[in-house]
């Protein structure tokens, strides 16, 4: 029987949660890197025992940790993230130019084929790549070099590159997303990039239809259909059927279309999940009810999933990297909250139970399905 390993990054350490295919009983390991902020932990699809973790602190800066045994032991690897050339400026919150300054790594995306290759999405927004297992990192500077950088601006969480999607059918193609610049695509392994924000509309920027400046919160794809993308924007849930060339809104009957994570069922490419949040000024579920919404039609028609989730007095948030799915026959869905709960559903979202309920605020959740 297969096993699952859930990798949770929190404000005060990383936790590894493991179970068998039933996903009823869980072993909890951690905190790893106790006291440090762990923005993301992710395993290599090419070698599930190779994990990368982003560890940081306001005092001591950025670290990258690597494990070769599925998270039992770790070693610090390279933490030198230096922008290529003169970094230039982006917009500050008040619209004035502000120099690019490295702050932290938000997201680590291991290569689909090589355990020693991984990508890092960082704040201030840029993408870096390692090809030596994390020892050294080199910026893919074509992204910042696209020319629109002076118009990028930070979202409330900072100017972060938080999403990296690797196209399993086209080794040269990647998608990334930045708050608040928007989505970008490369078709040449990261040498050159272009914005793919046609159809996004954001009332909070001077030109609601601008080429860049949109606060994209998360993008997801199903590996069998890499041209179909789903996006949770600051407001609006969006869909593209042409690799990001154009987007249309699929918020449909959601109670609110503000939120952070979005993910796709492992075996049903038209089944997607979001967690509606009341508003950009009230980062908690509407009515104090924690509800995951599922669409089985690729958007527009949504159903609330509530069984096992608190339906009163719940005021947690679910952050953009804090939802994931496993690939067991009955797809498992997982998410973590700022209240420290990690919820799991072993039936594609029909019912939920907490794996743990008292961790530090959860920043990220990833899942590995192990043989």
């Amino acid at each position, binding site marked *: 029987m297969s096993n699952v390993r859930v990798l949770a990054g929190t404000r005060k350490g990383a936790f590894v949660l493991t179970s068998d295919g039933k996903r009823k009983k869980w072993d909890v390991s951690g905190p790893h890197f106790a006291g440090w902020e762990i923005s993301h932990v992710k395993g290599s699809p090419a070698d599930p025992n190779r994990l990368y973790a982003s560890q940081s602190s306001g005092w001591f800066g950025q670290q990258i940790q690597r494990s070769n045994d599925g998270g039992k032991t770790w070693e610090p690897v390279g*933490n030198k993230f230096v922008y290529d050339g003169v970094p230039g400026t982006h917009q500050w919150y008040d619209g004035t130019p502000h120099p690019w300054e490295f702050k932290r790594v938000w997201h680590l995306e291991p290569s689909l084929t090589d355990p020693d290759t991984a990508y890092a999405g960082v704040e201030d927004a840029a993408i870096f790549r390692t090809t030596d297992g994390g020892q050294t990192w080199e910026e893919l500077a074509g992204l910042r070099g696209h020319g629109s950088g002076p118009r990028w601006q930070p979202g409330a969480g900072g100017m972060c590159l938080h999403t990296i999607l690797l196209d399993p059918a086209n080794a040269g193609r990647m998608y990334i997303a930045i708050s608040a610049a928007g989505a970008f695509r490369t078709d040449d392994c990261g040498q050159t990039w272009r914005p793919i924000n046609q159809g996004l509309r954001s009332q909070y920027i001077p030109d609601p239809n601008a080429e860049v400046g949109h606060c994209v919160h998360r993008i997801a794809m199903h590996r069998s259909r890499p041209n179909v993308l789903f996006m949770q924007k600051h407001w609006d849930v969006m869909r593209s059927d042409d690799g990001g060339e154009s987007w249309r809104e699929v918020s449909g009957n959601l109670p609110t279309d503000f939120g952070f994570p979005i993910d796709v069922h492992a075996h049903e490419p038209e089944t997607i999940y979001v967690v509606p949040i009341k508003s950009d000024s009230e980062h908690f579920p509407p009515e104090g009810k924690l509800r995951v919404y599922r669409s089985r039609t690729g958007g527009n028609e949504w159903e609330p999933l509530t069984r096992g989730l608190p339906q009163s007095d719940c005021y947690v948030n679910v952050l953009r990297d804090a939802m994931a799915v496993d690939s067991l026959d009955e797809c498992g869905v997982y998410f973590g909250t700022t209240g420290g709960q990690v919820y799991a559903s072993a039936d594609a979202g029909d019912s939920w139970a907490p794996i743990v309920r008292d961790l530090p605020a959860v920043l990220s959740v990833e899942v590995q399905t192990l043989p």
Partner: protein
Amino acid sequence: MIRIELPAHLRTLARVEGAVQVEVEGPVTQRSVLDALEARHPALRGTIRDHVTGQRRPYVRFFACEQDLSHESPDTPLPEAVARGAEPLLVVGAIAGG
């Protein structure tokens, strides 16, 4: 032998217990001591001072002999008691956050 006392998180990162000891050839300064420390414990690179500029990170302080040396030039000689190992150089995380 120069003694350096690190904050708990950096001791964990460097996998050391208690004070770290380093040898320094030539003048004993913040820069030469930190160079020796980072050479011995590469995991500490970038944690106390910036990788590129070499500047002290904003929330890190240097104390020794009941003096705050944080704002001294990195090339100013450290107190003689530190240089001969009688007193440690304290690397301190500023009181902040939670």
